[in-house]
């Protein structure tokens, strides 16, 4: 267990190290002088050039530049945004709540719709099952920006139930109301996948002997499903659900852009367009860190929910 954990942590540090090298090195991939790239058409006053050279330590050798940059990052100093003339860390902190709320909302929808329709499909073979299968098939082949367009045209333009893209809602309830369509657009693909995983995990359990025995003992069907099927099926559902959380995080850039939600994802996209490199570096690095951390957390937590997934099995592959 300790050895497994140490190995995983080592792998995590290795991934973060490589990512940091890539994110740092990207600046030097840019054609021409890094300063010209960082200025991105802004007036090249001697002061601006000098400030950029200092900020990115461009007068030092490459290894020293990297070490100084990484030192700053580890202290939470990501430099300053060329676009907003603001501290990158502060900028990210101000955009984080919007994204966190959207991801939380979408995660809730994924869990409810995904697990719900998965259970339904497993318990009702025939037309219901087939409908869920086809529905989830289409849902998972539909990119989130396509879902976004479809939702806006139906629920915002045609029916007028929900607001379209844009707008600055005040208060949590208004905010949630505005985030409903974006959350659905973000959630649909992942919900389709989770429904499939839930369905097959449930079907696996339904065919087991202990379920037959429980039924034969005269245990009520509701209790059988809840205590004997659902509980055992939860393991794979949680594992897949957890990894999807990381996927949701990455997909926010698309959905936030489609709905004009002021969050980290739309900040990332705007910063790419404006070639605001410090912001892109920071968000890329933080996203990869969140991605690998969530995946590690899921792998460590899964055995707690389902003890059969004990860690000892992991070393064999």
């Amino acid at each position, binding site marked *: 267990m300790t050895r497994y954990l140490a190995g995983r942590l080592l792998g995590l540090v290795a*991934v973060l190290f490589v990512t940091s090298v890539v994110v740092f090195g*990207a600046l030097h991939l840019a054609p021409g002088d890094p300063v010209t790239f960082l200025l991105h058409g802004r007036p090249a006053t001697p002061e601006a050039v000098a400030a950029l050279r200092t900020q990115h330590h461009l007068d030092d050798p490459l290894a020293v530049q990297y070490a100084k940059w990484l030192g700053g990052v580890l202290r939470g100093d990501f430099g300053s945004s060329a676009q907003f003339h603001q501290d990158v860390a502060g900028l990210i902190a101000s955009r984080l709540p919007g994204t966190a709320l959207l991801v939380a909302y979408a995660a809730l929808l994924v869990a409810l719709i995904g697990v719900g329709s998965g259970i339904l499909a497993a318990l009702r073979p025939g037309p219901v099952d087939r409908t869920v299968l086809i529905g989830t098939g289409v849902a*998972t082949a*539909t990119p989130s920006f396509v879902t976004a*367009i479809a939702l806006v045209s139906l629920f915002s333009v045609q029916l007028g139930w929900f607001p379209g893209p844009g707008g600055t809602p005040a208060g949590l309830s208004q905010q949630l109301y505005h985030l409903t369509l974006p959350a659905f657009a973000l959630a649909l693909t992942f919900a389709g996948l989770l429904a499939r995983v839930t369905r097959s995990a449930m079907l696996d359990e339904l065919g087991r002997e202990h379920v037959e025995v429980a039924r034969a003992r005269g245990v009520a069907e509701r209790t059988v499903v809840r205590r004997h099927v659902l509980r055992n099926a939860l393991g794979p559902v949680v594992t897949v659900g957890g990894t999807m959380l990381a996927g949701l995080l990455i997909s926010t850039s698309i959905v936030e852009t489609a709905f004009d939600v002021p969050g980290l994802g739309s900040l990332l*996209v705007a910063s*790419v367009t404006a070639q605001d490199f410090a912001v892109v570096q920071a968000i890329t690095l933080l996203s990869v860190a969140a991605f690998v951390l969530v995946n590690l957390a899921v792998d460590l937590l899964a055995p707690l929910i389902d003890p059969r997934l004990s860690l000892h099995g992991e070393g064999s592959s």
Partner: protein
Amino acid sequence: MTTTTSPAPYRRPGLRRLRVLGQGPMFTVSVAVLVALVLVALLAPVLAPYDPEALDLASSLVGTGADHLLGTDQSGRDVLSRLLHGARTGLLGPLLVVTVSTLLGTLIGVVAAWRGGWADTVLSRSMDMVFAIPGLLLAILLVTVVGSGMTAPVIAMAVAYTPYVGRLVRGIARQEKARPYIEAYRVQGWSGWTVSVRHLLPNIAPTVLAQSAMNFGYALMDLAALSYLGFGVQPPTADWGAMINEGQSAVQQGAMLPALAPSACIVLAVVAFGIVGEGLADRIAKRER
């Protein structure tokens, strides 16, 4: 008979449900859809009734009719013509991604399996690293430095997809290598390279092909997302992802087709590639059983 089963192609979990549709008539229909798509891409200049980039601001957002079967977009361009031409960029990008990642992944996988030892460790660990970095982020980073266009997204996605192929090929190649026929060739004094190219590759090719078909759909979806964000093919070139981006504001004015038509094309293509890939994988699995 050997009872070893080859490692199945990696399926992005999302598309696994298409598997039930992979056998039977849906497979045939999907192949037909893909053939039609390729024909449309090749013949777009002949088929398109209008120049896809010809602006006609006087007839902006005209609805469906005899003149424009699918109406026009905000700038008065014929949606059908843009859709047909969009199939070209829509298929060319994924084709490049899949070709590069399949060649590179096969090379890495075969070398890792054949050499074993430290070469295997280094190559496998490197593939794990690339796996941990989401392709979309890699593309965004590259676009920031190199600029928008087809180049950066295609390079980033080719890199991101290589480990999918590499891991698969390494797995099958290791199993193949353990089989007696390979040993027999080696005893006859054939070089490792000759045995790999002449005998190993033909045996693993079908599985790799199935994986590539699935990757094609995923790459199409990823590249469309990038061009939707404005990082891919630049206007005024017709491209499905970019068309959805441009059509967004029209949707709020009640004109759905300029955005919904390319959306439908993307979903259709992704579903078709998924079903064909799954169908091929299932056929291979059945044959081996």
